[in-house]
């Protein structure tokens, strides 16, 4: 694994590069150390997200667009699409999982299994869950306490699900799914750790 030590989040750099692609774009979310869910519950994340761009809009518009705290989860509710491509990226230091189940770093349409895309982890490692339940585990590189950037991309036009692992290696799996709209984005369900940056890109 490539070591970037205790390099802090890079607010601005990734956001600028990614913003051109983003329709829904949450980046950066530079939260101070501590339990992710706890931070969101205390509102530290809410403050951090004041700098986030949502469809290039102002923070005030974020609320209007449906961004809100739901318990420990940051949720965006709205409608984008139908989408041709959905991309999730998370730069996170995972410290653990709340409870014994799975934690969700990023989720699109988690309430609609047929068109859900989730970037999850449990004590055994990271995985991507695609529409219909297609599961792709990410290579076990590092673990709790290691800062990693991982992600996935669902290309509905090409019919494939791709994942990018913590060392940048990508893999693909064929997946035919009809076009769908993004109706909900959730961040940080049952997560413990720090989300340095996240991107949800719907095109």
């Amino acid at each position, binding site marked *: 694994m*490539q070591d*970037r030590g205790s*390099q802090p989040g*890079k607010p601005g*750099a*990734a956001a600028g*590069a*990614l913003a051109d*692609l983003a329709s829904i774009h949450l*980046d950066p979310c530079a939260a101070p150390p501590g339990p992710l869910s706890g931070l969101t519950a205390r509102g530290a994340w809410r403050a951090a997200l004041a700098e986030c761009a949502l469809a290039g809009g102002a923070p005030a518009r974020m609320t209007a667009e449906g961004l809100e705290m739901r318990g420990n989860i940051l949720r965006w509710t709205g409608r984008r699409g139908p989408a041709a491509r959905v*991309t999730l*990226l998370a*730069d996170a230091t995972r410290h653990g999982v709340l409870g014994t189940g799975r934690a969700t770093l990023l989720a699109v349409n988690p309430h609609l299994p047929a068109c859900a895309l989730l970037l999850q982890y449990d*004590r*055994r*490692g990271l*995985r991507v869950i695609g529409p219909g339940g*297609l*599961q*792709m*585990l*990410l*290579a*076990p*590189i590092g673990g709790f306490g290691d800062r990693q*950037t*991982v*992600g*996935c*991309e669902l290309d509905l036009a090409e019919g494939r699900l*791709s994942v*990018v692992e913590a*060392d*940048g*290696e*990508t*893999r693909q*799996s064929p997946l035919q799914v009809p076009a769908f709209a993004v109706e909900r984005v959730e961040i940080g369900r049952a997560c413990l750790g720090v989300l340095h*940056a996240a*991107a949800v*890109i719907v095109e």
Partner: protein
Amino acid sequence: MRLQSLWSQMSGLAPARLAAGAQIVIIDGQSLALGCNASPEERRAHSHHARAAVRQLDGLCRPDGVAVRLHGPGSLGYDARHATGHSAAVPLANVPAAFSFSQALDLWRRRLGIARHRMFVGCHSIAGTSIHEFDRDPAHGRLGTTIRDNHARWLQEALRVAPGARPLVYGMIQGEANIAMSAPAYRAAAARAYGDALDDIEALTGIRPPLMLWQTGGYVNAAAARPYGPVLAQLDLVRDFDAIFAGPLYPVLTFDNAVHPDLPSQLIHCEIAAYVFARREQGRNVNLLPGRPVWQGNTLRIPFSTEDGKPLIFDPDSEYPAYGGLADHGVEAAGARVTDVALDGNAVVVTCDGPMTRVQIALQAADMSAHADARGRNHGAHRCDIIEADPPDSLLLPGRKLKRFIPSCRFQRP
């Protein structure tokens, strides 16, 4: 690639790269080398094992026009068409052991910081074939030189697609068809077969790769008196060829109440092989083999070559209680009754109530087929619950451990 580019932007890192120079991984044998005939659902569930480094040849066909994929052409052989290129290896039916091994090796190389290379996967296995089918003598076996011809042809095609590719290892998972052979007979036949295979590889590439061997396990029904010669001969063959010892197959859970591992068991035994191989790449021989036994009165002390002197332990999570159990940890004696099986560091210490003439481990003659679970899965009759302590975490199957069981072995009092 766009996703990788976005990843780089967010992480500030460059993606990991494979080292230059392709490698060739060939694992031949019988049905266990062809691998688990996984259902589409199983293959889909395990799609995460697909790694870009592991490649298959494209464009090869059997004479009946059927495309030859990972599991080779079998007894039909190849037609005249050449390979047209290569692609990421994806099993369509059987999941060949060579594929599972290579996936695991790529992960273990990454974990251990060993240079990763593109690996071309070859498999020339045919279910149920005797060891005699693997040598170059056309008078041996019913298939003549089919397997040797397939092997040579595939290798030529691999070199056409990837000139300069270097053979990394030649593996063999074979022996179930030859349990009626004596150990000396099997040792001689296998040495001939391995030698012919390695000669073929060397003739085409100029490189004689190391040999890697699995030890044959017992059938679930091993009650009939058969010598199981391959099991003991394979330990000698490992030493004869300075081979990588992938480990015994008796610990696998069979999906068919016979001898074939289910997919998770195959992934684990192939990953153990990859782990041992990766350690060898680091210059460390971690073959887990029995050493010279020490007989003293009613006691036999058998040392094993554990990694870094790790102690042996009894498997704390043994599955055997659910599948008919296990007596004396799998240790049996002739000429006396076993009264104690103890572990002392890296040694198994067997005590009997008299001067035993022979001791054997994981070589039971029994029929355990009545103890299958509701899904028809079972463990073979050869059983033992002695493992190397502190097993590594599996990279292919998160949550599982790579338990290295001591091999089946037998010792005669001098």
